[in-house]
């Protein structure tokens, strides 16, 4: 494999576990260890461990951090208390999505407060430059890229929180969904955040890069008997698709705005100035002709990204952005952008490699945990 790919701090752990490694966003990442479906099912039924160290971790310190973030993000974060986590988007002036991110407001044990932003691996360099261009307006903000000196692990599944009690001094069940804290593990700081990208309960942690293998091995040690599995990017994708969550490069791009993507909940509009706010207010008044939907193809064969969506008359009215066999539902599922006018008719078809297949529009998510 090419030498210009970066390795995460858990690279050797993955190789020892028999992972199949693939290039992804400039990193060598595990696509699966044994099989996508078994890792997917482990996450839904027990718990799964994901190395998400490839995602960018950007830190904002100092006076003005909140003002900078409020200018950058579709979601207001200046009113977020310590311990809060919010999902938001970074848009360009025309409302196109540059990235979707999580921002946490954290306090170190020495009572230093800062904000941590987690960005998509594929967008890290673009977002770094975007933020650096804003820094002159906020001279007291210290902005640092913590990606290379830290690692990030997601532990997701119904047993994730319960099992964490045997590992961490901090009781993660005390965090509500979308809350985060910093605790000490092996006398080193670890950020714990009750968030995830699978539709399951669970948490994500950020630790120092050199601590990551020991934490991962401890998690597997206490988890293996409980049915934990390591899980790769393959299962991460099928899990997020079932949970109806967008993925940058598929449902999100610079030519799609958050409202068309049905992410209005992550946009605080009205009396707020942020980059893209004027454009988004315009789009809120005059929606774009397209909308993101969930589709159930009436087929054994999965619909995939790029396949055309047609109306009953056979006119092209949209395109699949993500599609796969759903391991939980044992049937194909897909997300697509479809013309708003054709959504109500609900007589859509998908061109699956030359065969027209009826498809039903369904409310997202495809899967909701009980």
């Amino acid at each position: 494999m090419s030498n210009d790919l970066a390795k995460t701090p858990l690279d050797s752990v993955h190789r020892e576990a028999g992972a199949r490694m693939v290039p992804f966003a400039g990193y060598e990442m595990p696509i699966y260890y044994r099989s996508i479906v078994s890792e997917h099912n482990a996450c839904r039924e027990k718990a799964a461990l994901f190395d998400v160290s490839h995602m960018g971790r950007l830190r904002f310190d100092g006076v003005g951090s909140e003002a900078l973030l409020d200018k950058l993000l579709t979601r207001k974060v200046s009113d977020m208390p310590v311990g809060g986590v919010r999902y938001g988007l970074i848009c360009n002036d025309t409302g196109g999505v540059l990235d979707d991110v999580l921002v946490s407001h954290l306090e170190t044990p020495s009572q230093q407060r800062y904000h941590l932003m987690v960005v998509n691996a594929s967008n890290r360099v673009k977002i770094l430059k975007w933020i650096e261009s804003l820094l002159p307006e906020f001279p007291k903000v210290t902005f640092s890229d913590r990606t290379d000196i830290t690692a990030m692990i997601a532990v997701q599944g119904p047993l994730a929180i319960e099992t964490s009690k045997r590992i961490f001094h901090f009781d993660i069940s005390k965090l509500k969904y979308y809350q985060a804290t910093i605790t000490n593990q092996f006398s080193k700081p670890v950020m714990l955040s009750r968030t995830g990208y699978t539709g399951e309960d669970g948490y994500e942690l950020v630790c120092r890069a050199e601590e990551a293998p020991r934490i991962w091995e401890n998690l597997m040690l206490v988890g293996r008997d409980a049915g934990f599995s390591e899980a790769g990017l393959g299962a991460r994708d099928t899990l997020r698709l079932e949970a109806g969550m967008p993925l940058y490069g598929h449902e999100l791009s610079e030519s799609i705005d958050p409202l068309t993507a049905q992410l209005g909940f992550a946009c605080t509009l009205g009396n707020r100035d942020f980059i893209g706010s004027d454009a988004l207010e315009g789009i809120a008044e005059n929606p774009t002709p397209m909308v993101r939907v969930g589709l159930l193809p009436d087929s054994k064969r999965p619909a995939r990204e790029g396949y055309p969506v047609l109306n009953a008359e056979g006119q092209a009215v949209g395109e699949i952005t993500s599609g796969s066999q759903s391991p939980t539902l044992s049937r194909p599922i897909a997300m697509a952008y479809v013309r708003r006018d054709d959504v109500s008719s609900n007589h859509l078809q998908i061109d699956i490699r030359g065969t027209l297949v009826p498809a039903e529009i369904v409310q997202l998510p495809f899967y909701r945990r009980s």
Partner: protein
Amino acid sequence: MTRDETKLLYASTHEWADIEELDGVKYATIGVSAFAIEQLNDLVYMDLPEVGREVESGDELGEVESVKAVSPLYSPVSGEVVETHGELPDELEKLNSDPYNFGWIVKVKVSNDSGMDTLLKYEEYKKQCSESA
């Protein structure tokens, strides 16, 4: 009869061919190697060719889909499709455990030997797999 994987011929695109001669006519039974099935991971769909179709070696015979991707299935030989394994698409999970017997996909009546000389013996194919893994 159990097929011996070490006696089969392999295309560099991971199909195996078991070539038998009957009344002076060669027939190739074709499937996908255990290595490729493992790499494909979690098969969900297989599309078989129609009986009677004429194929050249290297032509697409059908498609195999895993959870993640669509992969073409190429014909290692030239000839006419004379039989397809109709039960296979409904029992793809058996491909993992038995790729060389239950896992046969099509039978082709070989019309000419074009492409046959490019097929690999088991040891050569294994070497190719170990280099790509």
